[in-house]
């Protein structure tokens, strides 16, 4: 594009750089080598025919960037400029041979000699004006025309100026990092006089240039650059009387309107004029603009006019089409503004219109309106049915323009079938019969041999077929049609078109839910399973999984679940989680015997590992616990698998199961010690919550197998438990150790009683999948994940705040705080309250178990001396637990009753960040002796910075780095929230490496 201009610019600007001056000098000013052209001219007096032969060109200059030109020659007989002849374009050739002969027949000699033969050589450009290369002209009276004469002529630069409107000197600079192009316009010369006065000046642009510039701006905008001017020019164009100018004006508004809504008010007047113009072209432009922008302002201005245009008798068909869809758009953006009125009944009758385009547009409008006001548009049903029946029964040529690859009006048929899906099956028997006939015809046509081998033909035909099947499923009343539809889809399942297989799977999914066709769908199980194994497109496999899920019932559940599990091993990561959910639900729903169920789930967990969400195994545990008959089996199987469990999830699950059914383990073959060792061998691999569960399991072992009590106590007593950096684990270890050593067998038995059965309730995973199967057929995985996360948060978060209350420290004044480091916890735990330790281990307050537990806990607070027996629960199916409430409860109890409660304060620390200055300011404020406490103790181990840091964080305070001037000191800060007061705690740990001593100051 513009290569000619470029060439010249490069050439003409050359003198600007030093050293290039003599190039210009030799040839004389403006003389370029333009090459030459060979041609011959002759006149045949008998035929009165002038013959011009264009033979060849030589050494033509290169005009394109590629270094060549695409030359062709235009032949004129001046002064006539209207009639011209052209040679063919010789691609990429600087020495072209045209060898073309042109005859000017019936041209009297007297006239010929008055003419001048003018040859112009041009470079062809597809996308811009052709670039002139050079020209030759010969007055024919100077040539002896009697003989055919051949000439070689040098080309001269074109003087007519068609390519030259002046020159512009500019510079371009591309900055790749900022992704900008800087254009500097330096100067122009030899500009063509454009105005009538002969000069160019500041005069207003004429319509043509305005259109040209706005169009260029639009082009620049569409290339991705911002445009912040030219809007007013566009608005002006819009009110022009010329179509081309108007069109560009409207286009500019439609494309840019998002970024400048102020414009809309300016153009409303123009649109109003065009709507009233009765010029169909202008009316269409205006309607398209409204439909494209569809803003509220427009709705306010035009909702009254458009229905009138739509139903007026003299409106052109194409305008009706636009008006119908325009109204549809306004109805969507501002439904309150579109008044229903007498026009609605006339709109329905557009379904009978002669022009199928109008019917197409009107059907869309009616469908949308009918969804909202089904009553008002009820009459559309019979009209749609009769229209549909006329289409499907027509021969493939009847509808002429609207036949697409031998299929009569496929899109209109689809739209009509969609409209019918807004209504139940027609009550009127005749209409109903006619509709059934239509649907049967469509199903029959699918069986006919195709009229064309083109994919377009089969696609169009099947588009109608699938929509008809949707309608059949929607009505769900004709068993015969449903079964036929199912058989048709069954054929598609093995079609070679991937698209059809995909759609058949999708469609069958909905068929499976109908009682009439469920059995028919089930017959295709083998094909679907095969699809799961062989399809290359993941979305097709996903549909196959969906369909298997939908067709599953008691009779085929075992097979389907087995196949899904099989597939899971190689399934794409993106759909694994969904498959896991589906397998879990199916296994539960259709389990015939529970041993199968347990095996399946264990397999599932083994295969899918991390994709099994917590919900799934919580649910499993609920089920197993509620069924006495499976408990034994599951415990045994689970235990046998503990040894070679690879996945952490599996392990966690197994522990949970074991913990709640330890009693049953006794029935299995292993001796308790082996069991315990097996479990404990995995301990160090587990996450903190899992370890916590493991510890609880151990204490239950103690209860059941007194013979290994000593081994377990050893484990609990080990440093890795009692000094664990995690407060939760440490506390459990301490408590359980004490419990095991002081409590009598009776108390132990009561405290560690078995889990009561769960009340039956709907599975949370099922609710989830139900939600998934909601309005859209496609599950929104993101959303589900989000939900699941929030659920999970509910159950995992409390684990860290999960309070097991032991130890004593009662703040009588808010500042009298005991500093309790990792070691002192051990000391303070020593004297347990005589009446029995209060153990409140709460995972959840959603389940009834906790509902009963919460009040009992309170009771115990008010009468702490009563020997109370609380039960240790670890409710794995926990849902939500309000940690704050619990903290408040404790805080309240502490403040009001001032009873000595076994509470470690550090459980309620909220870490606080502060600067060095703040820290020491506060530190110094705490000067009263009862406000601080110092403890010097000998460290048992060599100190490791990282370990210490971890311990401090585990203690519940925020670790403040770079606060203390001495880098080897550790500092921390935290706040305890009680109902009435917030208490701040500061901590400083000054290790003395040589003496292996730590100073703990609070």
């Amino acid at each position, binding site marked *: 594009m513009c290569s000619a201009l470029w060439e010249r610019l490069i050439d003409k600007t050359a003198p600007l750089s030093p050293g290039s001056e003599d190039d210009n000098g030799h040839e004389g000013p403006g003389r370029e080598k333009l090459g030459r052209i060979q041609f011959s001219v002759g006149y045949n007096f008998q035929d009165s025919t002038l013959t011009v032969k264009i033979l060849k060109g030589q050494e033509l200059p290169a005009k394109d960037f590629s270094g060549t030109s695409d030359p062709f020659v235009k032949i004129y007989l001046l002064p006539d400029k209207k009639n011209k002849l052209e040679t063919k374009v010789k691609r990429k050739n600087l020495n072209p041979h045209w060898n073309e002969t042109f005859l000017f027949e019936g041209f009297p000699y007297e006239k010929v000699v008055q003419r001048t033969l003018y040859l112009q050589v041009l470079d062809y450009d597809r996308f811009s004006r052709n670039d002139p290369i050079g020209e030759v002209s010969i007055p024919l009276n100077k040539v002896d025309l009697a003989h055919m004469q051949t000439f070689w002529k040098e080309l001269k630069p074109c003087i007519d100026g068609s390519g030259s409107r002046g020159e512009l000197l500019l510079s371009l600079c591309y900055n790749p990092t900022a992704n900008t192009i800087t254009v500097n316009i330096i100067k122009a010369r030899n500009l063509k006089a454009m105005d009538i006065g002969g000069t160019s000046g500041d005069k207003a642009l004429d319509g043509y240039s305005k259109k040209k510039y706005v169009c260029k701006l639009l082009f620049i905008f569409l290339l991705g650059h911002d445009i912040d001017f030219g809007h007013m020019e566009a608005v002006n164009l819009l009110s022009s009387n010329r179509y081309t100018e108007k069109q560009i004006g409207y286009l500019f508004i439609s494309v840019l309107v998002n970024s400048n809504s102020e414009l809309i008010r300016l153009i409303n007047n123009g649109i109003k004029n065009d709507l009233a113009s009765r010029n169909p072209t202008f009316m269409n432009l205006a309607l398209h603009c409204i439909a*494209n922008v569809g803003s509220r302002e427009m709705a306010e201005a035009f909702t009254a006019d458009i229905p009138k245009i739509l139903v007026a008798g003299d409106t052109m068909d*194409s305008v009706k089409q636009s008006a119908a869809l325009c109204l549809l758009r306004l109805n969507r953006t501002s439904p309150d503004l579109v008044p229903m009125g007498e026009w609605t009944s006339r709109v329905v009758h557009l379904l009978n219109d002669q022009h*199928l*385009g109008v019917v*197409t547009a009107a059907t869309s409008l009616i469908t949308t309106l009918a969804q909202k006001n089904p009553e008002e548009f009820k009459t559309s049903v019979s009209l749609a049915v009769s229209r549909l029946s006329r289409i499907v029964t027509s021969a493939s040529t009847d509808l002429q*323009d609207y036949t697409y690859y031998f299929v009569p009006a*496929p899109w209109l048929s689809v739209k009509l079938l969609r409209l019918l899906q807004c209504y139940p099956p027609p009550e009127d028997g005749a209409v109903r019969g006619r509709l059934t006939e239509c649907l049967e015809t469509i199903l029959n046509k699918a069986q006919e041999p195709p009229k064309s081998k083109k994919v377009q033909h089969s696609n169009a035909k099947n588009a109608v077929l699938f929509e008809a099947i949707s309608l059949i499923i929607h009505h769900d009343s004709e068993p015969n049609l449903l079964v036929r539809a199912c058989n048709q889809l069954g054929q598609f399942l093995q079609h070679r078109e991937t698209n059809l297989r*995909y759609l058949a799977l999708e469609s069958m999914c909905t068929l499976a839910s109908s009682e009439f066709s469920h059995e028919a769908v089930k017959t295709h199980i083998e094909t679907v399973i095969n699809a799961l194994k062989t399809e290359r*497109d993941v979305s097709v496999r996903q549909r196959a999984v969906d369909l298997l899920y939908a067709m599953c019932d008691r009779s085929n559940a075992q097979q389907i679940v087995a196949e899904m599990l099989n597939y899971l091993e190689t399934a794409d990561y993106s759909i694994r989680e969904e498959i896991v959910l589906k397998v879990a639900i199916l296994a539960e729903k259709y389990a015939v015997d529970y041993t199968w169920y347990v095996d399946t789930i264990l397999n599932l967990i083994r295969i899918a590992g991390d994709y099994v969400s917590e919900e799934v195994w919580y649910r499993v545990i609920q089920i197993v616990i509620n069924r006495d008959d499976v408990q034994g089996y599951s415990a045994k199987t689970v235990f046998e698998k503990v040894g070679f469990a690879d996945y952490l999830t599996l392990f966690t699950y197994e522990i949970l199961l074991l913990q709640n059914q330890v009693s049953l383990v006794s029935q299995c073959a292993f001796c308790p010690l082996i069991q315990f060792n097996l479990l404990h061998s995995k301990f160090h691999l587990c996450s903190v919550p899992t370890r916590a569960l493991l510890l609880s399991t151990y204490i239950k072992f103690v209860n059941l197998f007194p013979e290994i009590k000593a081994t377990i106590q050893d484990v609990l007593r080990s440093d890795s438990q009692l000094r664990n950096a995690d407060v939760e684990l440490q506390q459990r270890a301490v408590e359980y150790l004490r419990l095991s050593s002081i409590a009598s067998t009776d108390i132990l038995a009561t405290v560690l009683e078995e889990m009561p059965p769960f009340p039956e309730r709907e599975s949370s995973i099922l609710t989830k999948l139900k939600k998934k199967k909601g309005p859209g057929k496609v599950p929104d995985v993101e959303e589900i994940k989000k939900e699941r996360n929030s659920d999970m948060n509910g159950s995992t978060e409390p684990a860290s705040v999960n309070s097991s209350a032991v130890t004593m420290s009662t703040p009588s004044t808010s500042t009298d705080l005991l500093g309790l480091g990792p070691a002192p916890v051990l000391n303070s735990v020593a004297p347990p309250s005589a009446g029995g330790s209060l153990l409140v281990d709460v995972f959840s307050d959603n389940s009834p178990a906790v509902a009963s537990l919460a009040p009992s806990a309170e009771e115990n607070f008010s009468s702490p001396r009563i020997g109370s027996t609380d039960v240790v629960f670890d409710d794995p199916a926990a849902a939500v637990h309000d940690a704050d409430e619990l903290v408040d409860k404790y805080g309240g109890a502490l403040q009001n009753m001032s009873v000595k409660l076994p509470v470690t304060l550090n459980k309620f620390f909220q870490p606080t960040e502060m600067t060095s200055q703040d820290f020491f300011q506060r530190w110094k404020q705490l000067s009263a002796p009862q406000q601080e406490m110092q403890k010097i103790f000998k460290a048992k181990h060599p100190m490791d910075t990282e370990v210490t840091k971890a311990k401090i964080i585990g203690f519940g305070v925020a670790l403040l780095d770079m606060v203390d001037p001495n880098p080897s000191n550790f500092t921390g800060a935290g706040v305890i929230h009680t109902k009435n007061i917030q208490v701040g705690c500061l901590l400083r740990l000054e290790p003395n490496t040589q003496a292996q001593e730590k100073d703990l100051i609070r």
Partner: protein
Amino acid sequence: MLSDSQRHHVPIIRFILIQNRAGKTRLAKWYMQFDDDEKQKLIEEVHAVVTVRDAKHTNFVEFRNFKIIYRRYAGLYFCICVDVTDNNLAYLEAIHNFVEVLNEYFHNVCELDLVFNFYKVYTVVDEMFLAGEIRETSQTKVLKQLLMLQSLE
């Protein structure tokens, strides 16, 4: 996910995109309000989703809450974004119908025709699709109208 009552306010076609293999947009027609950043994001995501698929794959891709129905012609991807419940094949053929009209109108259409005659392409789109619905399906009728408009230039 949209509830049933919201669904009525949403056009069937959310947008039409024509992109080349390098991801350059050759036409973008939006039937819903998106802000500029959102548009850019959608364009990039559609490109990423569509270009990785091969000929053995379906012409339908799930995309956010919608689905994209696309077809590749030489180096150009024609994509229509519709609701998940919409008729896939009907829109697939609507694309082909549109391309046949372009081909007829531009005489062997190529990518650069769409670039330099963008304003004509918008006219073609508006003739065939309006307000997110199919407006006219007859190639003869559309071409007749386009030639009539061209004669006004």
